[in-house]
Structure formats: C-alpha cells, structure tokens
C-alpha cells in the first residue's frame, strides 16, 4: 500500500539509473539517516553507542570493502583481517610522524597504504582463481600478522608490542583516545562510514563497478569485450583494501583504543566474510545487514538470560551463542543463499502488493 511506485515516471536515463529510483526508498533512507544522526545520539546510552553502534559501523564498512572484492569482482579473500591491520598500523605510524595533522585525515590516508599492500597481494589473482586464490590470500593474512609482531618500527618499539591510540581532538572535541566520549567517536565513525558507503555505491554502478561485475560473471568473456583483467582485478583489490584499511584504522582509533596483532587475526577475516555472505554478496545494503546480524545477534543472545533472570554461567551463554549463530548461519544459507539483501527484496516485493496480494 505504502511501498508502491505507481505514478513515478522517469523522464530521463539519468533518473532511471539513480541510486534510489523510487521515492519511498529515498524517504526510507532519509529516515534511517535521521535515526542514525539524530535519534540514536539523543536517546542511546554509552554502552549502546560504544559496544553496539560503533563496532557495527566499523564492521559494516569492512564488509563493504570485502564485498567490493568478493561480491562484485568475484575474488574470494581470506586476508581481510590483515588488510585492516595494515590500515591500523599505517594510521598509527602516521599519527606519530605527523602528530599535528587531523586524525580523521590520517585515518583516511592510511587506507592508501593498505590499498598498495592489497594490490601487491592481488597480483597472483590474474593466474589463480576461486578457492586457490582464497588460500593465497591466507598467505597475506599470516605473513602480515607476522610482520605486525616482528617489525618493531610499526609499533614504535613499544614494550607491550601493541599500538596504543593517543588522544587527539578536532574543533576542540576529543575524538580519539580514552577520553573521547562514545558520542564523539560515534559521529566520526558514522560520518566516515556513510560517506565511503555512498562513494562505493556510486563507483559500483559506474564503469568501474560494471567492469568488476563482468570479471566476476565471466572473466574470459569480459576480456574479449575489452576489459583488462589485470587492471580491473588489481583495482578491485586496491579499492577493497582501501575501504578495509580505513575500517581497520577506525577499529583501533575509535573503538578498541589499543590493538595487538592478534586483533587482526584470521578470526577477524572470517567475521567479515560471514557478514558479506550472510548480508548478500554484491549488495552494499546487505553489508550493513550482515554486520548487524553477526555483531549484534551474539550481544542480544548474551543479554537474554540476564533479562529473563535465568542463572546460567557466562560461558554457557557463550557456548549457546556460538551454537545459535552457527545454526542460524546454516539456516539462512539454506533458506536464502543470496543473503539478507535478497530477503529484503522479497520483503519489498510483498510490500508492493500488500495488503491485497492479487
């Protein structure tokens, strides 16, 4: 009833190709942004901001990054965690070298380092495909993790072997370090995530994005049609790693405050890959949904016994949470292998004809 596009006519090609061609979508997006920028900051408490929203946004951005590579360009990668780590370590080094430069700018710049590293490890993708490529990205994962531990210069030879985030401010508001309020950090993370998501969504529907999809769908055919596989694939690796790198830098600067190399381990790579696949390969919105599912569901599961006042041990809850998440992953894969993004489309289809289907 409400979600109906009848009466919305497109008079130009541009209007038809717009990011959100249907008016209701625009309104919906407006409402989501309104909630994110106004309602949540006004109503949420610190725990919700610091432990639910900030990680959720960071993971969403990382999932968008991986989605560029895996969902749009079809190159399976298990090295996301390490590429995020490159961003984090680069940002950390940059803040020590240029202490006076705005930290947000440095976080955005740090992505370029991870893009470069990503492109280097993307080189074999020209020859190696599918699961074989996934294993070679594991080489990146383990090698880079080793570098984070071994190259003292990366963490300024701290005795602790970890990177610790200094306090930095912007316009008189502290935005990084321990003294930054969750609210300030939330706004920074939200702004960066929304901007990059918007940018990527636009890249994806343009020439570059389409050439990625051609490579994904059939690389030989794409080659015959004049797409250069090397450049295109490396571009996908670079863009993906850039986004992941920024997400990784945000992870330590605005969320964790300190990071050991183990924060960027293979577990993180899997976490992100889950988000991408459950959210839906090849969908920017799906990345957000997948991140919400993987990050927020366990928090909810852990909170349930508390709400119900059931007295079971913290670790039993953890075990059950693991089992439920695992079972739900399989359940959703069986029901809808194309992820939440597809479920959302089905829901939209139903909304179109609601309340009178036929």
């Amino acid at each position: 009833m409400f979600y109906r596009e009848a009466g919305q006519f497109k008079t130009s090609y541009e209007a038809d190709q717009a990011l959100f061609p249907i008016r209701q979508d625009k309104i919906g997006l407006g409402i989501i942004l309104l909630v994110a920028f106004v309602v949540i900051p006004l109503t949420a408490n610190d725990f919700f901001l610091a432990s639910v929203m900030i990680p959720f946004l960071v993971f969403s951005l990382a999932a968008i990054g991986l989605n560029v590579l895996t969902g749009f360009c079809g190159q399976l990668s298990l090295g996301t965690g390490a590429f995020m780590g490159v961003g984090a370590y680069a940002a950390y080094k940059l803040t020590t070298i240029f202490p006076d430069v705005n930290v947000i700018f440095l976080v955005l710049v740090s992505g370029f380092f991870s893009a470069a590293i990503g492109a280097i490890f993307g080189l074999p993708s020209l020859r190696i495909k599918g699961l074989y490529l996934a294993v070679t990205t594991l080489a990146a994962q383990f090698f880079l993790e080793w570098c984070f531990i071994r190259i003292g210069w990366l963490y300024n030879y701290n005795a602790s072997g970890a990177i610790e985030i200094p306090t930095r401010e912007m316009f008189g508001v502290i935005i990084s370090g321990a003294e930054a309020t969750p609210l300030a950090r939330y706004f920074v993370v939200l702004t960066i995530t929304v901007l990059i998501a918007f940018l990527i969504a636009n890249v994806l529907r343009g020439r570059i994005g389409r050439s990625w999809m051609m490579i994904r769908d059939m690389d030989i055919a794409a080659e015959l049609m004049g797409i250069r596989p090397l450049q295109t694939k490396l571009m996908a690796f670079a863009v993906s790693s850039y986004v992941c790198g920024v997400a990784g830098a945000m992870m330590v600067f605005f969320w964790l405050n300190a990071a050991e190399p183990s924060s960027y381990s293979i577990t993180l790579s899997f976490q992100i890959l889950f988000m991408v696949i459950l959210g839906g390969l090849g969908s920017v919105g799906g990345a957000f949904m997948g991140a919400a599912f993987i990050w927020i569901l366990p928090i909810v599961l852990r909170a349930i016994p508390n709400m119900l006042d059931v007295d079971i041990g913290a670790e039993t809850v953890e075990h059950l949470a693991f089992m439920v998440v695992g079972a739900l992953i399989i359940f959703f894969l069986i029901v809808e292998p194309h992820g939440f993004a597809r479920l959302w489309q089905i829901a939209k289809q139903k909304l179109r004809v609601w309340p009178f289907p036929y």
Partner: protein
Amino acid sequence: MKHLKTWACATALAVGVTAGAVAPQPAQAQDTNYVPLLTYRTGPFAGSGIHIANGMNDYLQMLNERDGGIGGVPIAIEECETSYNAQKGVECYEATKGKGALVYNPYSTGITLQLIPKASVDKIPVLSMGYGLSAAAVGDVFPWVFNVPVTYWDGASVVINYIADQEGGLDSLSGKKIGYIFLDAGYGREPIPLLEQLAEKHGFELLQYPVPANQMQNQSSQWLNVRRDRPDYMIMWGWGAMNPTAIKEAVKIRYPMDKFIGVWWSAGEDDAAAGGQDAAGYKALNFSGVGMDFPALQDIKTLVVDAGKTQTDPASIGTTLYNRGVLNSVIIAEGIRTAQELTGKKVITGEDMRVGLEALNLTQERLAEIGLAGFAHPMKVTCEDHAGSHPVFIQEWDGERFVKVTDWIEPMTDVVRPLLEAAAADYAEKNAPWPERTEACAQ
C-alpha cells in the same frame, strides 16, 4: 520453501527488533559492592583461564557466604566471558562499567592495554595481577593501574638470579647460554628488553625462540633449535595450550628438565602433567600458595564447592592457577576493606577502590587473620610502587604435583626499577598528552 522464506524474513525482523531492544541493564542495587570478573572459559586459553576464574569467583563467594561480604556489605559478582578476545573484552568493560564496577581484572595483556588509558577517565582502577604492562608499577605515571604483586621484569630477573645461584654467583653466568621460549605476542615479548640488558651486563648469551600464537601446538621446530643450540637453561613465557606442548617437546628432545624454568603463568598442574613423570624437575615461578592447607581454602571447599554453589571441580582446589585466582580475589577483597576503612563508607566507588588498593598493606598477620598464613608474600603498595611486593619463589614438578623448592627470591630491583621508570616515561611520552597524576597520595 516459500513458507520458509517468509519465516526467514520474520526471523530476520525479529532479530532486528530484539537488537533494538537491548535495553541498558538496570544499575545494581545500591547496597552491594559490585565486582565484575572478566574471565575466559572458552577459546584457546581456556585451559588456564578456567582455574583462574573459579578461584576468583569462589573466594569472593565464600566471603559472601561466611561473612556476608566485606564490612557487612555483600559483593555482587558478575562474570563476563571474554574468550581472551580484545573485542569482547571491550564489550564486557562497557557493559559492566555503568553498574558501579569497583575494579577490573582483564587477565589478558591485550585487554589490559585497552583499559589502561580508560581507567583514569572512568575512574575505575585496573588490577592486573602479575601481567599486563610492567611499567604500570610506576604509580606516579599510572595512578589507576596496579600490578601487585610483581611485574614480568621482576620475574625475569628472579629467574636469572636463581640460575646464578645454581651456577655459583652472577659472575659465573658469563659465557653461559640461556634460551628464552615465548608466546610471540606482547605478553611474551615484554621481558626481552630486561633479559637483553642482563645478558649484556653479566655476559651470558640470550637465545630467543618465539612461538607464534597459531603454532602453539606445533612447536617441534623451536625445540629442534633448542636441541641444536644446547642452551644451559631454558626460560619459558607461555600461556594456555602452549605450556603443555612445550613441556612435552622438552621431554621429547631430552632436555634436562631441572634446567627448564617457566614463568608463573606456565605453572599449572595440567601443563606439567602433560609431561607426566618425565617432566619431573620442571620448575616454575610462583607467588601464590601451593596446596590447600589453608583455613580459607577449607572454607571455600565447605561453604562454596561442597555446597554446590560453583562449578569448580573439587580436585582443582589448591592447584597453582586456582590459588592464583584466589589470591587475586584476596587482593580485591583487602582493597575493598582498606577503602572502607579509609573512607568510612560501606558501599564504595571505583575512586575509593583506587585509594584502597594504593594503601593496601597485606601483612603477615593480616594473611594469618584471613586464614591464609604464608599463602603469599606480604605486600605493601605505595603511591610510587604499584607492584607492592616483588619476591617470588620457585616450585618444582615432582612428577605428580608441584613442590615449593626455594624460599622467596628477591628480584634485581636496582636493575628493574630504572627500566620500569624509563618505560613508564616512554609510555607517557608516546601517548602524549598523558594526564599528570592529580590523585592525592593517601599515605
């Protein structure tokens, strides 16, 4: 299948709605002292974590059962599972800090590092008992962090002291080869600067054998290297699954076990038992009592464990790591008690707790009073020195249990303290602007 899809939509929606409804938990009732315990009973380090968690929980629970808490105020205990994972550690911290948490025990170097800068902002002290950042012992720089009773650097210097004793003085160390096998992470790397400095000073050669965290159970290369280099002594900084594997491998290459010394986190019974009889002679540092011949532990057994109020395996009471957990809780409890005395309040805050911990004076007599005579070395925390005690002893695996074999050994404070201060200054400089200490000294 069609129905399934509707179902899936509904599930997704339900998850979303519940997610939105994660309401902030209500604050604790105001007549308890709230102590969150960040524990890990799952994950790769669960083998060590479970005993610690049990020990911490049981002692506090015993105080509640026996004395009705501390100073008449019960302790509200809440465990939060971190799985030794930094992401979950931060989540646990954020989830519990609003409920009036008095102190945090992260039991992970990574989580400790995340909490150190937050402690002074949120006004909740961090008690990293024998782990975390060694430099935190410098109370002038880290007023909110305590690493009673001992730092890693103290520990490393005790090992060298002990080896020197065996060899007949520090001078005879010259020309010796000492191997150091460690978990290749912040934790294992921490003692290296001190060991290197001592190696230079006393003329021994330090050989390093890093064990990557994902190779913990696959150490044959490291031990082959040990076999080739034939170090005179081996020192180990291991945790979790690394310990039993290392001990097994040492047995396998026939390394003389009596020359193999582990840090206090490699001192678990389960770790040594992996080597069985062949591991007899393996030594480890320790600073908490061995066995269960202490009245307080007996109370725990009768009031908590036998009463079925915990999941502790009765056989594990008195084991090294369990007792370590108990000691951790003793420090918390005594900190609360001291804070109550100093402030005159019964229900205290994190700020009061900090004052209490800083004034902590756990004397021989007090230990006897709480039923733990000789359980630990007396500790006296001062504003400058947040490690408080320092001496540790060495225990030896006799094939079935650990036996205390040395008296308390003093660390080389003259070497360690300047290093600690330099490291603290370095930390403050790198994390500039690091807040100056403004908290008044209570003593």
